[in-house]
Each structure stands twice: as C-alpha cells, then as structure tokens.
C-alpha cells in the first residue's frame, strides 16, 4: 500500500494504533488508540512507567510484535520511504517489512548484554545488515563495518570486528548496537531504553553519540525511556503513556514547564532531582536503659558501625593447579562510621565495590583485613557459625526483590524467616508477627498466604523490607534496594524506609548508583571509585561542593530533568570501564584523606 507524499508529511505517522495480547476472548490491551507523528530529524521521546506500552509501541512499528504474541488490532503506521512514497507498515507484507527493517528503520534495544548474538563475531553481526540490504561484498562490508565502529568511537575497531560480544563491556556493546543500526543510514531510529542498563557516565556518552549522529545524518529518533532526566536532555517532543494510552504529548520544554495531565505532573514530581537537598540527621530517641549501657561501655553514643581499613579482594585462579593469576581489588582500604538512625549512602559506578562493601560488612564475603566494629564488637574474627547470631542485628535488602524472595515460600514464611532463625516462635505467634510486619510496610494482611509472584515489584520490595525488619535489626544494608522500581514506586519505598528509620532508629548503609536517590535518602555519602572511597562527608557537602575529580565527573554525567538546563558536554565521555583487576604482585597504596570541611574527607590525589 503506497501513497505519494511530500516533505510536509511526517516521516512516521501512527494513527489509532491498538495492540493486544492473549487469547481472542480475553484480550489484554497493551496499547490503545495511540496516535502520534514524527518528522524527519526530530527526536520524539516516549515516556511512561513500566508496562505502559512503550516497548510494545516500538515493536509494533517494526511489526515485530506479532512474533512476541501480540496482535495489531487496528490502526495505521504510515512511513515515508526514501522515494517519498508512503507505506502503511501495519498492512505490509513480511517481504516488504524485511526490506524496511534495518534499512530504513532500525532499532536499539534495552539490554546490551542480551541483544547481541553471543556466538557470532561483532564484525559478522554488523556486516550481515550491509550485505543484506546494500548488497556489499563481504570484504567491502567488513571495511564499512570498521568505519562504523570508528564512527561510534570504539577503540581499536579493527580488532573489535573479530571479537565476540562477551569480550566487550556493556557500554561497548551498546555502541556496537548503535553501529549496527547506523549501517544503512536509516531514516528512523527507534531506541528502546538504550541506556537504562548502563552507568551514568556511560549513559552520558551514549546519549551524546546518538545526538551527534542524528545531527550529522538527519535521522529521526523515537527514544523510549522512563527517565525524565534523559528526556530533558535529548527529546524535542514527548509522548507520555500510561496503561497503553497516550496521556499527553507536547514539546519537551512545554511539558516540563507546564505539564497538563495530572499523571505527567505526578511523574515529574516523583523524579528525584539532584540538588533538592538531603534529609537532616536526628539522633534517635533511645530508652533510658540503653543510654545507660552505652555510657557504661564508654563509647560515642550513637556509633553502631565502625569500619576501619577494610580490604576485600577476590583471587582469580586459573588452570588445574588453581594458580593465582590476579586479584580483584574490590574494596581497598575503606573506613567509615555509621550512627544509629543515620543513613550512609554509597555511590559509584558499576564495579566500584559498593555491593562488596555491603557484603563484607555483613561478612557474607570474607574481607581480607580491616576491622568491622558493630556496637563495639569486632566482627572480623568471628567464624561463620559465630556470625550467625549477630545477623539478627544486621539485615540486608537486595536490588531485585523478585529474585531475593524464595518463590516457593509464602509471604508469612518469608517475612518471618529471620525471626524464626533467631527465636523460637509457635505458629500462632509467627502469624501474628507476620501480620504485624505486613501492616508496618502497608501491605494488606490478606496477602499473608500468597506467594511472591502474586505481587507487583513495589509490593515485593515491601515484603523484603518487612522481612529485614522482622528481627528488629540495628543496621540494614540496602543494596540498590530501589533501583529496580519505577520512579513513583521508588519514592514510596524511600519514604517508607525513612519513616521506619525515624521510628526504630535503624541505621542504613544505602547503596545505589543513582546519585539523586542517594541524595534523597542519605545523611552522609561516600563516593566510591575502584574500591576506594574518594570522597566522604555530609550529603549536601559532597554533592554541592565536590572536591574530588571523580565526584565531579560523576555529578556532571547525571542527566538533569530540566530541559532548560541542558548542558553542552565535552563530547564522548569516558566509556570503557575501569577495572579493579590487578596482577598478583600489585601493592596498593594506603588511602590518605584530606579533611576539607567538617566531617568531609577527600582522597589525596
């Protein structure tokens, strides 16, 4: 179905698109009545929460949704081809679509780790598009592929061609994906959350790249994301989706300035914004008895955790003889303290050692040296068995609430497990306890006999929190506890955690790669780079007056959810990940800190 058009007509015009899943009699509508236009050279962002139909829309445009079991119920997807003829993709034949896919329209997917075929060489994966659509010879294609890798500024492009995906880091893979999509200079690029899985610094690089490429080739972009910051950075126009419907569409500037729909406003409000200020620390009120005991022990009243010179390394063995070939210096000479009722945020890029610090403190991994004083008692010399009773006071919440709940246990069992381990309860007490815990995290008591898969992501994280609370711990290590959640849910969970802290005086070691979340949650913050704390201090001090280069770099890379503050960036930020893997004979230097303010330390550079 082709029609003639002219330059005034949009490049892509989606009209009344409806897509559904499931059997015919009980369809699940994923996208309903969606319409939008996209003109050449424009960037359109589609935003919305998880499950709002963003990906389905994207896949529908390429007509790949049927493969996933979806159905195009109605609607038109008019696309203007190179020769200005317009085709309705919704009614095109498979052969026709194959000519368009990868050629006129290409797509980047969310997961750089799984979107590339693991058993084919990078070169091959790029070349096949060229060979297929442009009828290049293999050697021509290879040359072209090399240029493409060069264009996405991948180092050593010649060598990359013969590498396999697993040999590259996430950022590099995503660049390969981009190179692949650019191969045939498409008129439309659809990017479905291309940076969500990446670190902020890497994300910044990728965004720059897309923008730059778009400017140089005039490609129109549909950019799907749930990160309003990214939207503010990159989009010309925004479509806001919710439950499969378009709630609002506007120019980016307009949308941020004057959101019309309530939902948009909510969405914007929920976005944690860097620079909105950290919570104020208030030492928890404590019972008189406790007070007395503390005095007796003669310690600084509020310090529950003191970590001194913590070092954790992972040996890398090779071969049959299990020879030690290298070490991962995951945590290197780290010291900090944590007071009751205080939150210490740990922030840093992926691999910087955040999780390992958390796990080391709980002795879930065995640290190499250092001291971990919990309420004055050194945990370091404790054996696994002797550590177990201590765990009553030291609990943990993990990033992925689904994976960290045993799918075969009921909520009642899950929530009370830590308690059961440390105390003897009869079935009745246990149930009461479970109901009470669920109430604290605001889950209905009726959910007590259900199983994890019957809950939403936010609810599951509440279960995890309830579980951590059950043994009335004094410290909770929250490792990316809110990272997997949608912004609105994230906000709720953060509020809940803060509330619980106020009530019980729990100290959090709060780990996140999202600086905005850290700011919202933490009284103090430590910035990690390659296993070392490069800067530590009160949250506002560190984030507003960063002293260490790395902290500045990190803060710079954070997208700001305000299109008016869109910055000109030095192009192509660092993308290759730094590695903490060191040879066996590597001798790390001790961390030396300069004091740059009250309680504000910076690693000597």
């Amino acid at each position, binding site marked *: 179905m082709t029609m003639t058009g002219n330059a005034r007509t949009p490049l892509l015009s989606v009209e009344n698109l409806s897509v559904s899943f499931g059997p015919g009699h009980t369809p699940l509508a994923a996208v309903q009545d969606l319409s939008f236009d996209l003109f050449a050279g424009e960037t359109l962002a589609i935003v919305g929460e998880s499950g709002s139909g963003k990906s389905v829309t994207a896949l529908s445009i390429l007509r790949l949704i049927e493969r996933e079991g979806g159905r195009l119920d109605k609607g038109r997807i008019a696309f203007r081809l190179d020769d200005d003829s317009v085709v309705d993709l919704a009614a095109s034949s498979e052969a026709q679509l194959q000519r368009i896919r990868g050629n006129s329209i290409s797509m980047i997917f969310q997961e750089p780790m799984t979107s590339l075929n693991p058993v084919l060489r990078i070169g091959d994966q790029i070349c096949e598009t060229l060979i297929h659509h442009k009828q290049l010879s293999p050697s021509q294609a290879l040359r072209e592929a090399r240029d493409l890798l060069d264009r996405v500024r991948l180092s050593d492009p010649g060598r990359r061609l013969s590498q396999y995906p697993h040999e590259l880091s996430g950022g590099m893979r995503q660049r390969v994906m981009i190179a692949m999509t650019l191969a045939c200079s498409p008129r439309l690029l659809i990017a479905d959350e291309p940076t969500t899985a990446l670190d902020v610094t890497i994300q910044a690089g990728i965004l720059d790249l897309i923008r730059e490429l778009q400017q140089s080739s005039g490609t129109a972009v549909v950019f799907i994301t749930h990160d309003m910051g990214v939207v503010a950075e990159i989009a010309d126009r925004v479509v806001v989706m919710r439950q499969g419907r378009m709630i609002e569409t506007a120019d980016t500037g307009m949308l941020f300035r004057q959101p019309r729909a309530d939902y948009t406003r909510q969405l914007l409000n929920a976005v944690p914004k860097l620079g909105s200020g950290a919570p104020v620390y208030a030492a928890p009120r404590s019972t008189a008895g406790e007070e007395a005991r503390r005095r007796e022990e003669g310690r600084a009243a509020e310090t529950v955790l003191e970590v001194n010179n913590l070092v954790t390394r992972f040996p890398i063995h090779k071969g049959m003889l299990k020879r030690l070939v290298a070490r991962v210096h995951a945590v290197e000479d780290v010291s900090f303290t944590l007071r009751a009722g205080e939150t210490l945020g740990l922030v840093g890029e992926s691999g910087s050692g955040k999780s390992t610090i958390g796990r080391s403190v709980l002795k879930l991994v065995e640290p190499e040296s250092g001291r971990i004083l919990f309420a004055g008692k050194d945990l370091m010399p404790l054996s696994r068995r002797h550590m*177990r009773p201590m765990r009553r006071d030291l609990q943990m919440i993990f990033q*992925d609430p689904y994976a*960290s709940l*045993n799918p075969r246990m009921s909520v009642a069992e899950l929530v009370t*497990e830590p308690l059961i381990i440390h105390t003897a309860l009869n079935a009745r007490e246990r149930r009461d306890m479970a109901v009470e815990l669920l109430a604290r995290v605001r889950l209905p008591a009726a959910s007590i006999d259900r199983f994890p898969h019957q809950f939403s992501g936010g609810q599951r994280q509440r279960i995890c929190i309830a579980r951590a609370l059950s043994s009335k711990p004094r410290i909770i290590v929250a490792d990316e506890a809110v990272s997997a959640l949608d912004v609105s849910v994230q906000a709720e969970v953060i509020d809940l955690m803060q509330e619980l802290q106020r009530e019980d005086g729990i100290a959090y070691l709060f780990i996140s790669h999202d600086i905005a979340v850290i700011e919202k949650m933490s009284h103090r913050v430590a910035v990690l780079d390659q296993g070392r704390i490069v800067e530590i201090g009160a949250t506002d001090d560190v984030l507003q007056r960063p002293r260490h280069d790395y902290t500045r770099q990190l803060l710079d890379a954070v997208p700001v959810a305000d299109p008016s503050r869109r910055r000109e960036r030095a192009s192509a930020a660092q993308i290759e990940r730094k590695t903490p893997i060191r040879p066996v004979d590597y001798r790390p230097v001790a961390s030396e800190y300069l004091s740059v303010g009250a309680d504000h330390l910076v690693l000597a550079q």
Partner: protein
Amino acid sequence: MAKMSDTTIDSLPETSRSPLFARLRWPATVRRVWSGLDWPMRLVLVLGALLVFAALAAPLISPFEPNAQSLLSRLKPPVGFAGAKVGHIFGTDELGRDVLSRCLYGLQMTLSIALSGAIIGMLIGGTLGLLAGAAGGRADALVMALVDIQIAVPFTLVALLAVAVFGSDMQVLIVVLGIAYWEQYARIIRGEVLKLREMPFIEASRAAGASPLRIAFRHIVPNVVSPLVVMFTLNFSNIVLLESSLSFLGLGLRPPTATLGSMVGIGRDYMHTAPWIVAAPALLILLITFVVQMLGDRLRDRMDVRLRDR
C-alpha cells in the same frame, strides 16, 4: 482466616471444611482443573487413569490366573480369529496362559517396578546431585567422577553382573533399574543447585542468619522439586523400556512372573506365528511411555515460565 474472596477451598473458613463438605467440593475442583485442559491432555489423563486402574485392579478384572497353564490350548488367537478359544479375549500364549490376564498382571508388575526404580534413581541421583552442587569441592569432584564412570560403563553389563551376582529377583531388578539413570538426576540436580546457589534469595537467607542445613532443606530442596518431577516422568518411561530390553537379553524377572517387557521379550519368537502375544504387551508399553512422556513434557512446559507465557 481471611474474607471469602473466590471459590477455592483455601479461602474458605476453617470451620466450613467438614469432610462431607470437602467431598462435595471435590468434583468442582476437579472440573475446574479439567476444563482448563486441552483435549490431548485430557486424553492422556484418561489413558493414564485407565492404565493405573487396570494395574491396580488386575486381580479383580483378570479373567484367569496369570500363571495358569493350559498346555493343550497353547497359542490360541484372540477372540474373532479362527481357532480362538472361548474366554481368552486376547488369546493364549506359548504355555496356554491367558494373554489378557498376563497383560494386566504384567502391567501391574511393570508399573510397580518402574515406579520403584525411578524413585530409587531419583533418591540416589537427587541426593548425590544435591550434595555435589551444595557442598562443592571434593564431594562434587567425587560425584562427578562417579558420573563419568557410570556414563563410560555399558549399562547392560552392570545389569548383567548385578543379576549374576544377586539373582534375578524383583528387588534386584528394581535396584538395577534404579541405578541405571541416577547419573541423569545427579547431573540435572547439580546444575540446578549450582544455579540456585547464585540466586539472591539464597544469599538473602544467609544474610538473615540461616544455617547451611536450613538453606539446603528450606530453600534449595523445594526449588529442585520441579525439575526432579520432570526428570522423574521422563525417566519412568525410560525404565519401562530398559526393563523390556533387559528381558529381551534374558535378564528380566524369572519366569513365570510376567512383566510387559518379558512378555514382549519372550513373545518375540512368536511374531510370525502368534503375533498377539507380543502385540498386546507391546501396545501397553507404548501406551505407558506415551502417557508418561506427554505428562512429563507438559509438566516441563508448565514449569518453564518463559515457555508458559508464550
């Protein structure tokens, strides 16, 4: 108990669950499950139920004693063919025994042998796999070495030697069939456990202070149950086939006890002259393996979440 929300038994108040009540609600549950099945599955379930029923009721529904011979009416064809003998619906075998009765008893025997064998295999393999996966290190190396050995030694020889040393009793046969496939369980379960070990919820419970025993039995075991069950069904039919192969080689149960396999194994000499001796038990074997395989396949599809959603 919680408010009444839907019609499942679980959500009903404790007090209303009298035995009679349960009995009344039973068919409803069954009907609900039933209506959720497609026709091949229904067929399979009906066939399976029939097989189990026939096996259990063998003493009641067999027209003859399975071992009662009638030497002068050997090899009589089934009813409907020339020369058939009244009463012997499936004809008689090489000693004039009633083929139908022997099939029914043979079915009983085969099912119980296969069931016990599969259970033994599951217990041995499952335990060793669990041990290897959970304990790692030496234990793992040892179990994997045993697996290597099991794979490298022709199983028929193991069976032969076992029968030679311990005689061809039912117990021996069951154990032999049981160890035939332990290594498959061990490998699968070990793999599952290794995967599970990396699951965050295991670390979560360790962080909560759970002891290794608790982790093994409260967290790992329940999660390997489903792959175990799938393996079990797949193995069950393999054992039925293996038993018949052993019978073919003369390593089955000692006569006159019939298993379906031994009936086929012995009856093979009569495939020219009295094919019904082989046909009836062979069809039953086919049926059993078919039913069990279908069930196993379905179970696997059910348990693989990704497949289920597609």
